């Protein structure tokens, strides 16, 4: 049942929505860095990253996603090996957490690319053994393959990334047609593991959780969280206008061009504008779910849902963090936050979904 690539099925609506988000992102980065001399060219850089990312998007879309099945196992293996390498010879890049590999020219963080390795590998596993998943051994196999990198990431320590992996993996396992009792069993196991995990939580993680639960407990550390809330509230219904947010322009808001870009949007565009931006983000995610619904095979469906889960999780956590609903983790807002690798990889992930939708028609008859 070979599928033919067909650019007629390329999801232009999705592309337009994504490019619109990136455009809004660049405009807001411009505003967030407008009067900071050493960051003033960041919007131009982001524009270049957007160009690179779009090229990547089309290249990925042009490639048949099914070839990725071949890459699934080596990619997973390479991912695990890199995590082990980080554990053994990694560098902490002066941050106190060992997350980077020094490869001579620069340092790399394997967990970034690892998201995609994990999506592809789990999608492969879950689609390959689709028929056997009702058997608990296969299901536990999937859980085991997920937990293996999770542990290595957790000990780095990188709580944010661990939870991201857990969420993506969990979503993929859940949508693969597990039974309700199996879900209950996995949930029970997770809960049973919690007390052990609590003991291993690093000091900084606890501190972040404590600040999240009670921002006044450490005014210095929660400064930015409070300033983000003030910025958002300051926007009101219609916003203070682009380039006019006082919290943003007078730098009361920190890391405003990346982690806290949402607060800049909220302050300058107000409730109306921000709701539109949020709607656009959720539209993109829903569009990915729609593509998954139409995917021609289970592998295509799962990788699209994996990308959707990733997008959803980062959006929800970042927006939640800005609005004081989630603890501060260094998670960026997809398409909007400043950051080259994040933007390019997100656009390529969208390309992956495009690759799936372009090949969703099986050829039952030849014309």
């Amino acid at each position, binding site marked *: 049942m070979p599928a033919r690539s067909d650019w007629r099925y390329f999801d232009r609506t999705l592309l337009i929505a994504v490019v619109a988000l990136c455009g809004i992102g660049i405009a807001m980065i411009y505003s967030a860095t407008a009067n900071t001399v050493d960051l003033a060219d960041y919007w131009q850089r982001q524009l270049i990253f957007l160009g690179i990312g779009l090229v990547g998007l089309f290249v990925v879309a042009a490639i048949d996603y*099914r070839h990725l*099945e071949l890459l699934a196992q080596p990619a997973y293996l390479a991912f695990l090996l890199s995590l082990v390498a980080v554990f053994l010879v990694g560098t902490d890049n002066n941050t106190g957490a060992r997350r980077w590999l020094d490869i001579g020219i620069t340092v790399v963080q394997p967990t970034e690319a690892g998201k995609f390795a994990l999506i592809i590998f789990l999608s*492969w596993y879950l*689609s*390959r053994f*689709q*028929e056997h998943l009702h058997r608990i051994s296969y299901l536990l196999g999937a859980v085991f393959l997920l937990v293996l990198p999770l542990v290595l990431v957790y000990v780095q320590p990188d709580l944010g990334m661990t939870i991201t992996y857990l969420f993506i993996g969990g979503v993929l396992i859940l*949508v*693969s*047609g597990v039974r309700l009792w199996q879900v209950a069993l996995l949930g029970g196991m997770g809960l049973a593991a919690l007390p052990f995990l609590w003991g291993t939580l690093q000091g900084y993680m606890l501190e972040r959780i404590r600040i999240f639960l009670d921002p006044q407990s*450490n005014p*210095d*550390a929660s400064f930015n969280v409070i*300033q983000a*809330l*003030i*910025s*958002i*509230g*300051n*926007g*009101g*219904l219609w916003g203070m206008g682009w380039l006019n947010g*006082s*919290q943003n322009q*007078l*730098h*009361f808001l920190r890391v405003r061009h990346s982690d806290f870009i949402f607060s800049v949007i*909220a302050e300058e565009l*107000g*409730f109306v504008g*921000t*709701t539109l931006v*949020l*709607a656009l983000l*959720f539209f993109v*995610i*829903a569009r990915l*779910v729609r593509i998954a*619904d139409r*995917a*021609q*095979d*289970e*592998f*295509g*469906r799962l990788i699209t*849902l994996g990308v959707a889960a990733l997008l*959803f999780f980062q959006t*929800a956590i970042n*927006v*939640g963090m800005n*609005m004081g*609903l989630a603890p501060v983790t260094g998670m960026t807002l997809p398409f909007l936050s400043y950051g080259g690798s994040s933007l390019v990889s997100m656009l390529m992930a969208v390309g992956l979904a495009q690759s799936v939708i372009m090949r969703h028609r099986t050829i039952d008859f030849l014309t």
Partner: protein
Amino acid sequence: MSLQARHSPRTSFLLYLGLTTVFLVLVARLYQLQVVQGPTFRSAANANRLRRIDLPPPRGVIYDSRGEILARNRPSFGLAIVPEDLPADDLDTPVDERALAIRKLLLLLQADRDPELALELGESLFLFLGRTDFTQTLRRAGIEVTFRVVNVSVAEDTPEGPVVHEVPTIIPDLSRPLPLTGLSALLYRAVELKSQGSALEPVPILERLEREQAFAIAEELYQLPGVQVLEEPVREYPYQEMVSHVLGFLGPIPAGALSLYQERGYTDINEQVGLNGLEFTYQDALRGQPGRKFVEVDILGREVRTVGQPVEPVPGFNLRLSLDIRLQEVMYQALARKAEEVNAPNAVAIAMDPQTGAILGMVSLPGFDNNIFSEGIGEEYLALEQDERRPLINYAIGGLYPPGSTFKLVSATAALAEGVITPFTVIVDNGPIYLPNRFFPDDPEQAQKFVSWNHKLGIVHGPLNVVDAMRLSNDIFFYLIGGGFPNQMQGLGEERLAKWTRLFGFGELTGIDLPGEVAAPVPDDQWKRQRLAESWTTGDSYNMSIGQGYLLATPLQVLVSTAAVANGGQVLQPRLAQELIDAEGQVVWRAEPTVIRELPVSPELLGVVQRGMWAAVNEPGGTAIASQVEGVTVAGKTGTAEFCEWDPEIEDCAYRTEEGNLPFHAWYVAYAPYEDPEIALVVFLYNGGEGSAVAVPVAQEILDAYFNRLRP
């Protein structure tokens, strides 16, 4: 090869449902933050970015009667730290960002290379922190500070005249400038202390920077969040000690009076307010209304722009006095010269327009330079505080002395008005009189002897009328009109003496527009019973009618009584300020002469008293002949007041003469021209000696200058 996709409508539905739910939750939260709580956060954002800056109004200038500037404002530059705007210590990093910022500031100021600056910093921090904190902070920083004892010169009164002592005072030995680590620690401590209070308030660390130096630092300030160059006006008194008692000085609001000032609308506890003299009395008028503006600041506390319409400060009113600085200068010089000559520890001269009560000049010695208060409280101030002559007191209104024979104006007026004597009554001075003892009237041994000053010189004045008695300042005459003599003459007596003393303004404040005025109660029978548990005697009336005994008065009270004689019976309220003028030059307030009371005496009878004062200056044998001035007729009355300043150390009165007699204050009151008085004058020298020999020449010099040089 993967299998056919598992398109379950139920899964898709759940996914969409989940997405929608999360979306709605986020939008709801957004709505809550932006719309429901929006106004709250808006004000929080405004609190972040808006800062209220008080704009101090320029303080009013004080002019003399001819427009000469007596008090003005000079710009001065200082450096201050705003603790709130300093970087806070980021707890996630091992370094202390605040300490780094402070160090950076000190390096920028070149505190490590400029020993003078380091010294000045050390001194101002010593004053800010106090000795204990200063020492402990340095000790924690590993620096031992040694203290050295300096001798502050302090003058002390002794019977042999003022002696200058060296009083040891402990100050930190800053002869070698503190090292950078020490200064850093001190500054850090100062900021820490201030952060506990209002962190937005600047902590001054350097004052009185040169203009160029201040500008140079201001240019570097962009590197230094939380550091401000302040421009603060400093009050300047060009005539220094010459008018310091009249003008007073400024200082920060005293802690004890804080609530009083707050009620009057003062918000900044560091605001400089008038603490003495006219600066105190006219504080609110001179101060003006502070303005304010709101500025937008960024997170580093740097001003970005002004928001809204600033409320401009309303400048304080200018104050014009009746005092003529040229006359003041003459008075100061003449008095100071004489005070030095006779070793008087303090002395007073006051000139007043007897028609209006306007003060033309007022000198109290010793003087002090009121500029030293503008320069912060330093060693000079300590020296002043410890000077036993107490130069800060304005003795013109704050010193109480027996008025001596100058009081004969009052006794003479009273006796004439009450009909005790007529202008033609003659009393004979045959030498000392012996007042029989009340309980043993027939025993001459127990009689009390009263002498007149001339008896000591072996002179008797013979028959005298009131004008003669005033001319010669004969005491016998006044003893008898004051106390009478048993079976021979009815005197004024205790009650009428006290009544007329009060009528002339003794026993009450004159009400001059200066703080610190004092008054002593007029002694009478009741007073004596309460104070000394004894009844009033005829002898007490004798003493009182020549201005001795229990009566005490300030030089200003004596002057007011003199003016009342000169102007025909009006007791006036003396006043220094004449006009308040706003910034546009409009007079907003003008002093009106205030008559406290009219003396119940006919102009004819008062004319007799005036005649007595005229005779003292212009007739042969008058005690004040030496105060004659060319071209003008002067009238006057001398006073030589015996006093006892009890010195507990020697258990006797201080300043006794070589023969063991009590010492004298020298007094002289005068007015001129006799026909139409323009100026009334009092000269007083503590322990000065004979009024006619000591006080009269000073008055002559002043009156001569006034009529022959200064008066247009």
